[in-house]
């Protein structure tokens, strides 16, 4: 077997830099949130001494103007999936490794490409379209190829495996994917590089160092690893990271147009249509919001779907700005099955279309519940019926269908004399640690129109109307 490993040391950083319309004039670093270490840094940052592995604080001291991004391996994984999807046109045997490597099995593909150069050229052309930095190496086993790509990469893409074993043998044992305890044990027996391990008879490795290391050494020498090859997805998923945070729901239509066009292309190429899809809005800290759009009339037309999603967006009040959009479509119907008349036109005002529009426009069925929160404006909420198990734990519903207020007023000063107090005060002093600190007394009252009202009295003895009850 001949494996070509492609190692991408700065995938997230490269993806970010490529999105910028102008060349950057300030350094960019990517920091892991768990360990507070720099995992990727651009060349500007590296010139100032900020290398991967450096602590975040040290980086701050060295770089006063750096752009900081949080390390998100899922971005790298998505990029790898996208690259794999493209490389799939060149090589059918692709293994996606973690969030920084791809492995291509090239010995089979050589049958189709006949020469090594043509295969490598095709691979290179695919990679160039992405323009990510990468390192490559080839070997007869996956593990060997990966290690070489990361620690002793070849100068250019090639499939020469003759010298790979020599190069591999010189690598330090610190490069091996073993636990810290195993590594310490190896050091304490004097092992320094892989050659020291390879010199031992394999039965001795297993007996003395354990089956895991035995397996590892065996995998270095000959490919025994079961490969899980990349399979293109059966469903349509498109993601778009927005250039800036979008706070208004209506403003999402523009980026959504692009996604729906991709869907239209996807469906048209496959000669299928769909009657159901979902749009997911991703926020920074709040849980993602999913909007399901269905249509009585299945279609591939982006215009129709955009219109339906527009109605949904009108009903939504965004509680936080949107960072990312995802469009999923998993239900496909063969387009031919949907045609009733070969010569009939598409009727955009058919009953199904109208019904789809109306369904989109109507309110979702939800539960009305009281949750544990001293901030009364958050205590009464409507929750979609299917979401009751997904709430954060302190927001547990303990009272179903409690008669909370139907309308929260903008605080308006009132004349207390015009109200008859029924109950109170309920004094709530809470959330002093956050931006939502509150300190007020709540009262229930009836106004002159016999409406049930909730009033607030502040520590400065001012009265306000807070909420209206049904």
């Amino acid at each position, binding site marked *: 077997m001949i494996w070509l490993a492609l190692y991408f040391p700065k995938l997230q950083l490269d993806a970010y830099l490529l999105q910028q319309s102008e060349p950057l004039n300030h350094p960019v670093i990517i920091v892991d*949130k*768990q*360990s*507070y270490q720099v995992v990727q840094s651009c060349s500007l940052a590296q010139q100032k001494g900020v290398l991967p592995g450096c*602590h*975040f*604080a040290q980086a*701050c001291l060295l770089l006063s103007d750096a752009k900081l991004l949080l390390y998100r391996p899922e971005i790298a994984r998505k990029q790898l999936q996208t690259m794999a999807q493209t490389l799939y046109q060149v090589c059918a045997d692709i293994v996606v490794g973690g969030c920084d490597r791809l492995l291509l099995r090239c010995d089979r593909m050589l049958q189709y490409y006949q020469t090594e150069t043509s295969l490598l050229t095709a691979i290179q052309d695919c990679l160039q379209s992405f323009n990510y930095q990468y390192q490559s190496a080839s070997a007869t086993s996956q593990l060997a190829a990966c290690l070489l790509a990361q620690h002793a990469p070849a100068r250019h893409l090639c499939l020469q495996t003759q010298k790979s074993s020599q190069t591999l043998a010189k690598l330090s044992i610190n490069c091996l994917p073993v636990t810290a305890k195993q590594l310490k*044990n190896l*050091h*304490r*027996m*004097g*092992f320094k590089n892989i050659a*020291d391990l390879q*010199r*031992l008879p394999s039965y001795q490795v297993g*007996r*003395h*160092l*354990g089956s895991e290391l035995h397996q590892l050494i065996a995998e270095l020498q000959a490919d025994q690893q079961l490969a899980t090859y990349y399979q293109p997805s059966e469903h349509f998923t498109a993601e778009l990271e927005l250039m800036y945070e979008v706070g208004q729901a209506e403003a999402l239509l523009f980026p959504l147009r692009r996604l729906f066009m991709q869907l239209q292309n996807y469906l048209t190429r496959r000669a299928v249509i769909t009657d159901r899809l979902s749009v997911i809005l991703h926020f920074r800290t709040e849980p993602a919001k999913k909007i399901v759009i269905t249509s009585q009339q299945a279609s591939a037309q982006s215009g129709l779907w955009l219109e339906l999603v527009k109605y949904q967006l009108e009903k939504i009040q965004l509680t936080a700005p949107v960072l990312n959009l995802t469009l999923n479509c998993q239900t496909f119907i063969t387009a031919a099955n949907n045609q009733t008349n070969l010569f009939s036109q598409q009727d955009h005002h058919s009953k199904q279309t109208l019904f789809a529009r109306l369904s989109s426009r109507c309110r979702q069925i939800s539960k009305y519940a009281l949750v*544990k*929160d*001293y901030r009364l404006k958050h205590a009464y909420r409507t929750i979609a019926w299917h979401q009751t198990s997904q709430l954060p*734990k*302190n*927001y547990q519903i303990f009272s179903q269908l409690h008669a909370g207020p139907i309308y929260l007023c903008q605080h308006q000063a009132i004349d207390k004399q015009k109200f008859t107090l029924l*109950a*109170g*005060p*309920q*004094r*709530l*002093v*809470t959330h*002093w*640690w*956050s*931006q939502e600190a509150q300190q007020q*007394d709540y009262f*229930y009252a009836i106004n002159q129109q016999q409406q049930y009202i909730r009033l607030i009295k502040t520590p400065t003895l001012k009265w306000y109307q807070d909420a209206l009850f049904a």
Partner: protein
Amino acid sequence: MPCLPDYAELFCLTNYSFLKSASHPHELVERCTELGYQALAITDECSLAGIVKAYSAVQSQQLNIKLIIGAHFHFSLTTKQNLLIVLLCPNKAAYSELCQLITRCRRRSNKGEYQLLLTDLAELKHCLLLWHIEYWQTELTNAAKKLKQMIKIPVYLSYRRQLTFKDNHLIQQLELLCQNYNWPITVAGFIKMHDKKRRHILDVLTAERLNQPLRELADQLLPNSEQSLLARTTLARLYPYQHLKNSCSIAQKCAFCLSEVSYQYPTELVPKGYTATRWLRHLVRQGMQSRFADGVRFKTLKTLVKELKLIAELKYEYFFLTLHDIVNFAQQANILYQGRGSAANSIVCYCLKITAVDPRQIDVLIERFISKERREPPDIDVDFEHHRREEVYQYIYQKYGRERAALAASIHTFKFKSAFRAAAKALALPAEQIEFLLKNIHRKSELSWQQQLAKLPLDKNSEHYQHLIELTEGLYGFPNFMSQHVGGFVISAGPLHELVPVENAAMPDRTVIQWDKDDLESLGLLKVDILALGMLTAIQQSFALIKQHYQRTLELADITALGDDAKVYQMLQAADSIGVFQIESRAQMSMLPRLKPKCYYDLVIQIAIVRPGPIQGDMVHPYLRRRNGLESVDYPSQATREVLARTLGVPVFQEQVIKLAMVAAGFSGGEADGLRRAMASWKKHGLLQKFRKKLLTGMLARGYQQNYAERIFSQICGFAEYGFPESHSASFAVLAYVSAWLKYYYPAPFYCALLNSQPMGFYPPAQLIADAKRHGITFNPVCINHSERLHTLEKINNENTFAIRLGFNLVRGLSQTAIDTLLQARQQQTFHRLNQLHQLSLAENDLAALASAGALHQLSEHRYQARWQLMDSQASLPLFNQSIAEKTENAGYLIAPDPLANMLEDYAATGLSLHHHPIAWLKQQGSLLNTISAEKLAVQKNKSIIQVAGVVTARQSPGTAAGITFITLEDETGSINVIVWKASVQAQIKAVTQAKLLRVTGTIEISDGVIHIIAGRLQDISHWLQALDTRARDFH
């Protein structure tokens, strides 16, 4: 104007209900007094831990408020119904009942928990019970029925307005209960803070207790700040007058005061026919015969009589008898011990053999030990061998029973780091960020922690930042949890649980009372401190080894009876004092060549003079100048001569300062003692200044010069940093001399015993071994066939010289079970093959530890091979044993360790290397070409620039040193003392605080035989030997 209603708060928590209240006891009583309350009941949760501090605050500030003792409990009436019960003590019987109840509840549960049963409440006869009802409680009628059936004591219903919508409903329910059961209703605030401003602290304490950030806590936090002490005007608006009045009626029933708590010492120590006084005198007379075999001086006798009279007057006989009994046990069990501290001023203690300091050798000051004016019980600390102290504990428990003996509590409070961490966690800062911030705030920095925090990457404008600072400052000093005192025992005639509640400690079979040493002192309860000292263990073990190998029996008294040995003092004068008790530190070793002790009393001064007190008071140099004849010794009066003659006119000891105040300024014994207490708390309370005028006036009136008086006062202020009492120093000097004597005459047993008594002392084992080797002691490595658990002596070549064989305890990661197995197996066989170890079924980690420590050198060529062979998984299979034995042991392992690898393995496995030193190895590699080794420093030119390098073995930054850090480096020839000035520390802080290997370029200073390097450039060269595993001892 309507008059304000009277009110008594009957339900109040202090912060001794750990993490449940945000106010100190004194804050609560002060605030109640301000608000004009009639009374305050301190009712911590199943505890009386806070009451003594509240009581002390009332007494010391003479507050006009009645303090009521009580406690509250969460009580599960059924599985679904939890009640809140408050018990108050109207009289002494109720107090005793409450103590017993709390003890029962605590003792039947794990540490920190309690369980109250209905039967416990049913048995109560004297207490008053408040059933506190909150709005969320249900099924009150059922609960009331059950309580009515079972409870015999008066019951009251209490409640508080929580300002929720359910308040009115609650009051209605209470009134119904009141009607049906005739239980009066009273208001009780369930107070958790003395002021609403403490709300933030209370919430953070809740977050800490529940281990959640604030944002996750929802309704587990208070909805508002009403659980605080309220003004009476507010109370009048919130509550009906009658309910408030009832609180005062209940308070009036409670007349018990803590001053009624009386304490009796165990009486069984006095035989029939004797009184305590007579028996004590009898024992003292007996002791005098052995202690003063050649007769008692009149002065000593006079002091003794005075002391006995004082003891009788203050009724402290039993205290001495109890201690005498304990030390008697130690003598019989051959456990070495020594009393110290102010007790060494006591001739009675000397006669009873509690202390070993001969009063003829020091200037005894009995008032330092006991005085009528102080009204404090005497404080006697007795040190025992640290490995055998547990035997003394068990003796006490067996003799007096678990009911009559218990350890005092020790209250742990939030310090800066724990307060900062708690506040940051509550604010949901990520754990990594918290650790990063803490790591970058240095205690030794001249900047405050707030200033250092401002320099770190944190958004200064965020609310979190302000809250973090506010909360950390607020939490500092708050009680966090309770544990047992290090050795303070309280022993009583009757059951302790009638005096103070007793609860389980974390250690099995240990119980602890709920009061700490300050509480005991406040109430006059006597505490016996059973402490541990490593040097006593080392000395006792030295004696055992000497007996075993040299057939000579020695005791402490035998060595002191030999008198001052010039050779021993010569060794000390050369600062050859590593391993010697109290005089082995860097500072002491710098002083020895200057002070040049020649006799026992010189040692007493040596130990006392290197202390912050004399240093701050600028007594050290004047003393040395006078001692070396560079300055004349003069005394302004005969009275001062009598006090200061022993120290050449310079006050060195704490007692001298007190005596000067008495003889020179006319202070009475008690006033002088007040001065001593002010000195002890000078930094905290600044009380010394009020003595200044009296001292100066008194001295001037007696004819002393103004500048002399001012100098004495400034020396007193210096002493406030802590100076040693002469008696304490004298006790330590005995051990210092004995350990020096043993080092000189029996170095092999001494070092062996010292190593076996670790951890103790100033130096880790590696440095002790290096010093021993410089004294010609040979060390044999850990060996599977020759080592014991501890280090042992081995004869060399049938001569009367011994080498030290290192023991298995030195091997890191080797379990005690494995050692037991090895030693047991070795009784039957000697190990020739590794296979034999497999047959013992030792754990893989133990085998690896032995191999890495080089203990298997007799069974294998080298440690890599040993480790390799031991990791053979098939060797442990019985069927394969024989064939494996032949095959594997003949197979050579390909990788052999080089000297560097051996050295690194030595350090990793045992913390030291017998054959290689990291600095020697680096020098062999040519890495430290221009450095001077320790043994060659003495011949360098004074004040020249040189370079040294070494392993960092100790770092010290004493408070008196004004930011200077002292670093001890060790190379292959000895130790090097490096002084780093404050500016250098700040500029090179990373190298100063973190380096394991250091290269220093600086100026050498040689003076009176003492050598220092004043550091200029410090270079961290730890990365040259990155795998080297050494650990420095960092002091201060």
